[in-house]
């Protein structure tokens, strides 16, 4: 599948932006002053970008514990994201959520969710709202191969199907759930096979092939937008990084880890762009500087910025 050079280049920039963000998060996490734990989106960039670059700002997504990529692809700004990672008042969630619950409703990001599978049904509900209000929005839910074994996925697919809701199910199959291989925990070769049990079209996509991912997303989003109901995309790629930042992956063979790193969507897209005549080196330099600078100031600002006021501990529990 071929997509326009312009689209591919634009998406490459978006993916690179995520990669630079996540590599920086890993580095900064190592300094020890980022609270809690973080899961990075390295290697999965094609999925968030392939989907979100084709969504409107008002379209809604639900994300996972590995949500930075989804946020960035959906247009969330870097500085308040970083501030949130540090638990600061200036963070998107005023420091209440952190990495695993990062959210930006103004951009349609209804939240990362630290309950595996937690976002799936919420997206179905968001799609129900869109359908009922007839406002043309669509909803997308991202979830991992691990989440594919949660019952709520089954219930949500059934519901979306019988109500023909404008929702796209995107399974990010990186082959692992923490230390548990998908090949062990999932009873079928492709999660997408399960979609047939709900009369939902399901496809398996190589998520290291940006164009394939983009086209699959395009079709699914269009189908939702046209009122033709839900779709299921299983985006496969090997997990390049530890489950969380700091996970040494002792449970995984060195070979497996190495071969995973060789299947990198950024590297692959770079080659494709180059073969189509683009000076990728220039893009990388330019973005490296641009995003690098943005990250420098975002991290510096976050570290300098105010903690939430402990007198406001009880804020945001209820709205009134």
């Amino acid at each position: 599948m071929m997509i326009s050079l312009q689209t591919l280049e634009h998406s490459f920039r978006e993916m690179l932006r995520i990669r630079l963000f996540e590599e920086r998060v890993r580095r900064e996490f190592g300094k020890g002053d980022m609270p809690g734990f973080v899961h990075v989106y390295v290697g999965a960039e094609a999925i968030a970008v392939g989907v979100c670059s084709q969504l409107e700002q008002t379209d809604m997504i639900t994300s996972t514990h590995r949500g930075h990529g989804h946020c960035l692809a959906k247009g969330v700004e870097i500085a308040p994201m970083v501030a949130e990672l540090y638990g600061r008042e200036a963070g998107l969630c005023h420091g209440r959520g952190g990495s695993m619950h990062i959210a930006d409703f103004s951009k349609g990001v209804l939240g990362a969710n630290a309950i595996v599978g937690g976002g799936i049904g919420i997206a179905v509900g968001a799609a129900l709202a869109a359908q009922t209000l007839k406002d043309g929005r669509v909803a997308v839910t991202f979830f991992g191969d691990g989440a594919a074994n949660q019952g709520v996925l089954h219930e949500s697919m059934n519901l979306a199907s019988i109500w023909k809701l404008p929702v796209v199910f995107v399974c990010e199959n990186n082959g692992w759930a923490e230390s548990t291989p998908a090949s062990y925990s999932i009873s079928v070769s492709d999660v997408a096979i399960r979609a047939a049990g709900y009369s939902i079209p399901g496809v398996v996509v190589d998520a290291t092939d940006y164009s394939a991912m983009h086209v699959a997303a395009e079709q699914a989003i269009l189908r939702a937008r046209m009122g033709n109901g839900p779709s299921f995309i299983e985006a496969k790629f090997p997990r390049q990084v530890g489950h969380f930042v700091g996970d040494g992956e002792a449970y995984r063979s060195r070979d497996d880890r190495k071969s995973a790193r060789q299947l990198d969507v950024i590297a692959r897209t770079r080659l494709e762009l180059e073969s189509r005549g683009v000076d990728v080196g220039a893009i990388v330099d330019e973005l490296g500087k641009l995003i690098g600078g943005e990250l420098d100031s975002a991290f510096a600002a976050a570290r300098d910025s105010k903690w939430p006021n402990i007198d406001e501990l009880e804020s945001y529990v209820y709205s009134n």
Partner: protein
Amino acid sequence: MSIATSSQMVEMTFLKALNDAISFSMRNDSRVIVLGEDIAGGAGQGAPLEGSMGGTFGVTKGLLEEFGNARVRDTPISEAGITAATVGAAMGGLRPILDLMWASFAPNCFDQILNQAAKLRFMSGGQAKLPLVIRMAVGGGLRAAAQHSDTLYPLFTHIPGLKVVVPATPEEARGLLIASINDDNPVIFLEHMALYRTTGLVQLEPIAMELGKLGIMRQGSDLTIACVGQAALLGMDAAELLAKEGIDAQVISLRTLQPIDNEGLVACVKETSRLVVVEEGPPRCSISADIAASINESLFGRLLAPIGRVNSAATPVPFSPPLEDAHLPSVARIVEACHRVMTF
């Protein structure tokens, strides 16, 4: 038919009061929808309307006809999925009312209630707005046995981020349900099965009743009987019996468990200096324990007797009628507790 003024009262069943609250709210706000298993009932999406049951207990009867199947949706038996969808629908701009049928089925969607509905606003730093109501029938007495008779009052009340409502009368049912639908927070609305067919006077015009204020059902100066939901009816009967012995009991319907009207309760118990709490459900970590703890703290040294607590037995709800009767709070057990408190 005479022209009614808003101060007129009409007789109405608890069931009809709930139905009125929902249809009133749906008429006023097109974002209000209802969903749940069998809540349209047989009519599904497009099938013939006649005979549609309107929920297992009939609360939503007639709504499909008026509001159509985009706003009144039968769901599959998928409590987790439909509750998650309710949460998402609220975040997406609707004001959904979910009918879970029995509270005993809520454990099937406890993640969606505890981790999602209750926490999302806080975790998102105030971004999420969750104007949703989850209705469910609670309680025993129908010989429905252990898996259809839970109340779960304290489980919901323990969780910050939820509001918990327990009407005892048709007027409370209608007023509190309207307020719950108007509320921008997730509200757990618990309807005791034994109440559906009870009747009572309600004002002609549906109006909201503030959440967080208890209701005094009977004035009395000797002791206070504070009741959770349907237990207020038992409390009233007990008060009648006590009156015959010359004991003048005040009877309170708590109306909401979260927020709870601590101030109102303290004010009442200050007058009587004696308190009995009546709650259907097992005793540990219960509403009665919660109230006993807070009243003992607020009125330390000012109570004339230990706080009486009337709960269900510490067992699942038994099927066998004599066992179930012994398991549940009863008028006799309330009277007994009041005697203990009066004679301490």
